């Protein structure tokens, strides 16, 4: 029995040995494939980014944008998208999906993207393109549609409901420049009010004095106080000391 068992065991080992060798080989092959793929991905990513950098740094974008501008492609595309309602669908999809936030986060985090965007935005071609787009009838229609769209209302509503916005507003309101501006505005307002009060009080002084002197003359037909009349100078007016003028009160 033990002999048979030993024979079986040796036989089984003889069968499984080549299989285990094959398994080891397959595993090694898979590992190598994974490594090559990872390496290729890294190299390809680097290549793409380098290419993007090179494109952004070159005048290619300007040339492409100028071509687009002269051919009126952007206007055609915008018109078609608006007519077919594609633009609205795209905007709805983008705003409702999580991709926008992710894209924005990635873009904001990436130094290269920021540099590239800055370069693109600073190019004259973009400026000209935007000018043409905005002054074209299609641009006007786009703006009208965006403003009339319920999507905008919903976006504004969501924005107002977001806590971040109010934190931002609080931060702005607490900033020293805003506080200083409000203070100076308030001081200026108070100054204007006091100036007005002063002017009015000077007018009232003259009026009261005239009335009193008229009353005095009615009681006593004498020059008395009128003779001593002193014509007050207007506020801020400064005349030489020797030029105190006699009263110009009406008789």
């Amino acid at each position, binding site marked *: 029995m033990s002999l048979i068992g030993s024979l079986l065991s040796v036989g089984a080992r003889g069968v499984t040995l080549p299989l285990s060798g094959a398994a080891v080989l397959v595993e090694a092959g898979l590992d190598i494939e994974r490594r090559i793929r990872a390496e290729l991905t890294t190299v390809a990513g680097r290549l793409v980014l380098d290419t993007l950098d090179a494109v952004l740094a070159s005048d290619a974008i300007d040339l492409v944008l100028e071509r687009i501008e002269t051919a009126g492609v952007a206007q055609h595309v915008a018109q078609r998208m608006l007519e077919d309602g594609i633009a609205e669908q795209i905007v709805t999809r983008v705003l409702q999906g999580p991709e926008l936030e992710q894209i924005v986060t990635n873009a904001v985090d990436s130094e290269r993207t920021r540099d590239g965007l800055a370069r693109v935005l600073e190019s004259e071609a973009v400026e000209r393109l935007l000018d043409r787009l905005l002054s074209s009838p299609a641009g006007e229609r786009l703006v009208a549609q965006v403003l009339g769209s319920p999507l905008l209302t919903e976006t504004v509503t969501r924005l107002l409901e977001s806590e971040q916005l109010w934190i931002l507003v609080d931060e702005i309101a607490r900033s020293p420049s805003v506080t200083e501006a409000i203070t100076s505005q308030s001081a200026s307002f108070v100054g204007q009010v*006091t100036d007005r009060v002063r002017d009015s009080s000077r007018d009232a002084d003259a009026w009261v*004095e005239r009335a009193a002197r008229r009353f005095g003359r009615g009681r006593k037909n004498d020059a008395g106080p009128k003779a001593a009349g*002193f014509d*007050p100078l207007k506020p801020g007016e400064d005349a030489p000391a020797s030029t105190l003028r006699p009263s110009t009160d009406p008789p």
Partner: protein
Amino acid sequence: MSGVRPEVHTAQEHAAQARRRRQTSSVSTAMQAPPTGGRAYSGLVTRALAFALDSAIVNGCALVVGVVVGLGLSILHLPEAADIVIAAILGGLWVLWTVGYFAFFWSTTGQTPGDRVMRIRVIDGRDRGPLKLRRAIVRFGGVILAAIPLLAGFLIMLWDDRRRCLQDRLARTVVVDTPVSDDGPGRLRR
């Protein structure tokens, strides 16, 4: 008389002209008023507004202090006699505070905060400088006296060539308008 210097001669002429003016026209009384550097004497309404502002400040401060002291004393259980004494002391302090407020500002800058807002200044009627403390106190006494006969002491300014109230006559002061750029009574001096 040919040896008389021209400037002396001119001064004599001026004095003679001034005498003639005094005799011939009562308008000239305005010319005899101490010069104010070309500034107008302040009128009744402006001065009343300035005084109202000062009164608000004085009594507002007194009110706040009174409330704080009253609340503090309400915690303690003092006998009634002590309350009366404390009230009398606080009343005395209020009088001192009021007199001190006006006297301090009149004798230093010549402007109380209310005067500053209304751009008027109390100055000596003769040398046009700030008042001395004693005269400032006298002037405050004059304010009280002027108020007693139904404010007649204030109303007399309406018929005065230099718009002087009773307190101005007692303390020999005038109240003048100050331009925006005027920072102190010293500037009024020539």
